[in-house]
């Protein structure tokens, strides 16, 4: 987590945990305040692609 950055501005991200299993975050979001962009964590996998690359 401490090495992850917003792929657009390289700024810090705020973690919001929705569900956890033991220590692992299963669902949640990483939020960049500067870009006002959310990066989803789904099934334990952070999706750090900027929105235009997601699909």
């Amino acid at each position, binding site marked *: 987590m401490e090495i992850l950055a917003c*792929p657009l501005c390289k700024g810090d991200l705020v973690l919001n945990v929705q569900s956890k299993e033991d220590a692992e975050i299963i669902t949640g979001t990483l939020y960049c305040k500067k870009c006002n962009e959310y990066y989803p964590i789904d099934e334990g996998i952070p*999706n750090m*692609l900027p929105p235009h690359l997601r699909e």
Partner: protein
Amino acid sequence: MPHITYRNACVEFVDDVYEPAEDSFLLADAALDLAKQGMKILEIGTGTGFVAAVLKANLDVDLLATDINPYAVKCACNNGVPTIRADMFSAFKSLKCFDMIIFNPPYLPTLEEDKVPGWLNYAFDGGVDGTASLHRFLEGLVSYLCHKGIVLVLVSSLTGIEKAISWMEGYGLETEVVVKEKCFFEELVVLKGILKAGPE
């Protein structure tokens, strides 16, 4: 689920993700040879997670991987490799914190009409001359590799091995060929680069 067993690792593979082949085996061998216990290792474009999984099965290392293909990310995670979905280094802070960075770039010269449908294209498409991904990788690399850190890159004679060596040297990497193998119509090599001290 189809799988490959190699050097203590059992790796599943799925449709839409590059199936481990000669290049993957060569890179895994080289990585296992050079990695040391406790290293912080990043693999870019991990695919099934094959190379990282071989490292994990044999060494106690701190692993992280990325891929842009959502099926690859899932597959690598299922193979026990902590993987995030990202485009190369874009999701990491420039902390120069990795002891080893590994990349098997897509290297086939690819025109618009050569592209394969879907996410699998990312496993092959090296741009018009096959070097687009390697260039982007080398450009970003020095912000993430620690001083004296090791980079391992798979390069094909289709890309041009001497060319790749001189590009790596140009980025301040002391570069040498660590393994090579003739493979049908091409020669595959693993290039090792060590980051020399930069100008302070």
